[in-house]
């Protein structure tokens, strides 16, 4: 077995961190080690947290983690923030709300930039889940960049998806329902000490009524005040209940297969993109084709055929 993979299995933090970097950078060292650790994955319960920006996701994660630590569970946290499409840089600040966990050996936190991925996740997030899983984490929590309409990719990877809302959104609950209603396994109304909390709960409950009328499981709607730790114990109970529910029927298998499907597609996508755009022969060719499209010598579809034809043959 590859040395870094062996050290990841021994829960060595520096090796875990380094392998995550290799995966993020698409390094050749990554694929070898990922091969070695795959047989040791699949045990962790993966929890995704998404929701409105400023809804308190990071603070909630800190509280949830503390509660799981009391139960003796080891926790891995992946905090995703947007990468600037212009500079390629990212300011990763989710850790600010989690610094009290920094010294806990049973917790590993990694911040990631999206690096060009849409959908609220980072491209290497599947690898990072596998690495943390192989390193013995019982719970893996993924914080997405926030949710609008399209950032719903979290369900491709999470076993349990938490959607965080806050009071006072009013009609915006209606606005975001299209994407969000379909991905929530548990709704959290955070900052429940704010006015109008009951109205928000009622609005979400009424949406759940419609959504779940013919389903065997009703999506719970919970109130929390993350900064005081209020409602966290109930939330943990609902997360554990959902895990049991998944494992009591085919749902768990379905979700895991979906995750591997998404991971496979992502690996292929990345390799193809690198092949087309990074290999020097193709790079010149692409530039040339752009010139020709610009000069109306060729149309974009025929240009795409010219590039893909070589690969598909």
């Amino acid at each position, binding site marked *: 077995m590859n040395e870094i993979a062996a050290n990841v299995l021994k829960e060595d*933090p*520096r090796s*875990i*961190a*380094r392998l*995550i*970097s290799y995966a*993020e*950078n*698409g*390094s*050749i060292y990554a694929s070898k080690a990922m091969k070695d650790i795959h047989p040791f994955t699949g045990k962790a319960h993966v929890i995704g947290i998404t929701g409105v920006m400023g809804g308190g996701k990071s603070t909630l994660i800190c509280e949830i983690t503390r509660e799981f630590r009391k139960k003796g569970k080891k926790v891995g946290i992946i905090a995703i923030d947007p*990468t*600037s499409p212009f*500079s*390629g*840089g*990212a*300011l*990763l*600040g989710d*850790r*600010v*709300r989690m*610094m009290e966990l*920094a*010294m806990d050996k049973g917790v*590993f*936190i*990694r*911040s990631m*930039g999206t*690096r060009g991925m849409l959908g609220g996740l980072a491209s290497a997030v599947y690898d990072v889940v596998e690495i943390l899983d192989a390193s013995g984490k019982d719970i893996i929590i993924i914080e997405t960049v926030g949710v609008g309409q399209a950032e719903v990719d979290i369900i491709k990877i999470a076993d349990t998806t938490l959607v965080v809302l806050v009071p006072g959104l009013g009609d915006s609950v209606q606005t975001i329902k299209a994407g969000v209603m379909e991905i929530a396994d548990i709704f959290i109304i955070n900052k429940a000490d704010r006015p109008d909390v009951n109205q928000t709960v009622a609005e979400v409950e009424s949406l759940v009524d419609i959504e779940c009328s013919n389903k065997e499981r009703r999506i719970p709607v919970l109130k929390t005040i993350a900064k005081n730790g209020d409602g966290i114990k109930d939330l943990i109970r609902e997360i554990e209940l959902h895990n049991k529910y998944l494992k009591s029927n085919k749902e768990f298998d379905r979700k895991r297969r979906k995750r591997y499907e998404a991971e496979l597609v992502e690996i292929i996508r990345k390799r193809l993109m690198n092949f087309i755009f990074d290999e020097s022969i193709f790079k010149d060719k692409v530039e040339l084709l752009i010139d020709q499209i610009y000069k109306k010598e060729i149309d974009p579809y025929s240009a795409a055929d010219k590039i893909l034809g070589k690969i598909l043959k």
Partner: protein
Amino acid sequence: MNKKIRILIAKPGLDGHDRGAKIVARALRNAGMEVIYTGLHQTAEMIVETAIQEDVDVIGLSLLSGAHMTLFTDVTKLLKEKNIEDIIVLGGGIIPKQDVPKLKKEGISRVFGPGTHTEDIIEFINKNVKT
């Protein structure tokens, strides 16, 4: 392979002034780097543990309280203790000139004082981080 430079900007000790740290963090992000910000009041242990988990190339410490001789060197000592040699440590803030050589000896590669152009910091990092 697309390596991105990762840098931790940290405020050690009892110092609530983070405007400088935030401006530097922004400038580095705009230069295409991934910047992890810890917030205020960090201990050396928290900073080093975070640097390990985040696998950063650089730690930037900012302090305006005058305790840099203790707090900056706490970080470099702890890195040495853990045999971590591949992380560059930089200092910033109100650091008297006569302290700079002493800090250098303790493993702070460079001190950037008030009036520094952010381009100089970016250039130093780009030159010194192995990619």
